[in-house]
């Protein structure tokens, strides 16, 4: 299995605030990785950094930022754009605002085709129709001239997906692709994305705050907290036997795990912001297993048996291993 994307020790800083802090992430060719975290955990910023979309005054630092044998840190902005534009695509949360309301569906999809693949007008039109039918839009020939405001949320998201896969990318990044959609439509869209991933053998990074969505779709899960990766684990293990106390607490707080109790277990406190970043482990003020060491020493991210965790005393079967 070849590594498609390799990120080592990535940091993104805004005005002295580390939105992303020492993130390691690797995605193999044709694999699905889920990134889960609450708002402000840095999950979206990580991907924007990869695409080179961090706005001023953000500063990106990384030991290694490799995409398919090319070092993204060393490339010029233009070269980088030509790689990320063709081989990496993104789907965003708000389908209504990610499409340009001034142009037709056909125009917007063929725009990407024109830049990266060329071809005549007729060829492109044929390709657009093909793409629209691939994403499950009925009667695609009739939809070419529609404007985004004439489409429902689910349909717009399908068009977004068609745009994203137009150039047959190697890596598809879906940033909360279903958060703005209804449950039944969410199920349809997730099914579509997973189906296309299989068929086209793309690698997929699915970013979401919804643990359940992750559990039902991906193989490997990365949990982020306050800009750091706190746990990396397979989805078989992480939901039954999480290693990081944060993952454990997050799972316990889910309503579906507490159907018959009258109260939900909660995580006390808030995610640290710009002004109240604690010393030591960033999670220690909210962690029920925290010891003195957690308050003083910053835990390192370590990977063993393909399980990565950033904790001094990782959990085994829910019990912290103090030694």
């Amino acid at each position, binding site marked *: 299995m070849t590594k498609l994307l390799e990120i080592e020790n990535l940091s993104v800083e805004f005005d002295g605030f580390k939105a992303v802090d020492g993130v390691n992430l690797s995605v193999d060719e044709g694999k699905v990785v889920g990134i889960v975290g609450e708002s402000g955990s840095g999950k979206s910023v990580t991907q924007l950094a990869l695409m080179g979309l961090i706005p001023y005054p953000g500063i990106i630092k990384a030991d290694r930022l490799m995409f398919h044998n090319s070092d993204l840190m060393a490339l010029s902005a233009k070269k980088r754009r030509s790689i990320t534009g063709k081989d990496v695509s993104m789907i965003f949360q708000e389908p209504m605002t990610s499409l340009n309301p001034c142009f037709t569906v056909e125009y917007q999809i063929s725009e990407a085709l024109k830049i990266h693949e060329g071809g005549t007008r007729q060829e492109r039109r044929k390709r657009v129709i093909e793409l629209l039918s691939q994403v499950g839009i009925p009667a695609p020939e009739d939809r070419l001239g529609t404007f985004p405001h004439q489409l429902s949320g689910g349909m717009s998201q399908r068009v977004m997906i068609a745009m994203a896969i137009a150039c047959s990318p190697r890596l598809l990044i879906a940033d909360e692709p279903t958060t703005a959609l209804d449950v039944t439509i969410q199920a349809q869209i997730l099914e579509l994305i997973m189906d296309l991933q299989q068929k086209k053998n793309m690698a997929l990074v699915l970013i979401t705050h919804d643990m359940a969505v992750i559990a039902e779709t991906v193989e490997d899960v990365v949990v982020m907290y306050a800009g750091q990766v706190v746990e990396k684990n397979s989805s078989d293990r992480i939901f039954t036997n999480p290693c990081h106390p944060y993952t454990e607490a997050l799972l316990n707080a889910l309503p579906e795990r507490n159907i018959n109790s009258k109260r939900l277990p909660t995580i*006390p406190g*808030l995610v640290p912001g710009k*002004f109240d970043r604690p010393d030591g482990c960033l999670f220690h003020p909210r962690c029920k297993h925290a010891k003195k060491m957690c308050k003083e020493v910053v835990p390192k991210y370590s990977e063993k048996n393909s399980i990565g965790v950033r904790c001094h005393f990782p959990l085994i079967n829910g019990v912290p291993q103090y030694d």
Partner: protein
Amino acid sequence: MNETAIIAENNISPPHPLKEFWKYFSENKGAVAGLWFIGIAILVAISANLIAPHSPFTQYRDAILQPPFWMDGGTTEFILGTDDVGRDILSRLIFGARLSLFVGVIVVTLSLAVGIFLGITSGYFGGFYETVVMRLMDIMLALPSLLLAMAIVAILGPSLQNAILAIAVVVLPHYVRLTRASVIGEKSKDYVTSSRVSGAGPFRMMFVVILPNCMAPLIVQATLGFSSAILDAAALGFLGMGAQPPTPEWGAMLANSLQFVQRAWWVVTFPGLAILLTVLAFNLAGDGLRDALDPKMKR
């Protein structure tokens, strides 16, 4: 409720809104310079009686059209020279500042008050009332503003009060439209609905709940309106339809000295410069305000 007690402890405190505002405003050097100039102009206007070397009305018959002090024939008694009847130009400018700022304040207050009232009521109630008000404003916007102001002054008779009234009427549509647009934007927000659920009446809804949230663009428009009011007043003064002689108004000073442009440039230049600088200062400060108050510009 143990967990809630802990939440209360964690108080993230971002900077105070005013401090934050100043941070963004002071990034714009031009705006700060504009603000300084306005501050000085206000000080000068207030203490005109103390700092003006002469009375603006006294005519020194032995020093008619005397040039500024650095030129041949100039004296330090009349630093910026004298006009065609021997009045000290510096003193007239200083007292003129008082008048110009007064015109600006009155025009802006008047048009802002009426504009906010019409805009907020038409935006809030909508329907036929809104249509009537907005079409009326459209008609006013369709006429060239100076022409409309002149027409109003011509009907009421030329005087400073009437000029102020005319300018206030002419700029009114801008405030009405701006207020109405932001009211409509705010009206659909949840906090407005929740005030309605609490039983707030229309007066409270409009002026206590919604209005404070519409003020940012209005403040900017008012600052910029200040400069256009001064300019319009000067224009009307220039055309003889505003302040009447011997009132030291910048526009009127300009008009009355036109015939001396060839012989005595200072008589025309200094009132012109005064208008230019004041208007520029207000525009710069207005731009800075807009940038600082507009959340979209914030990084």
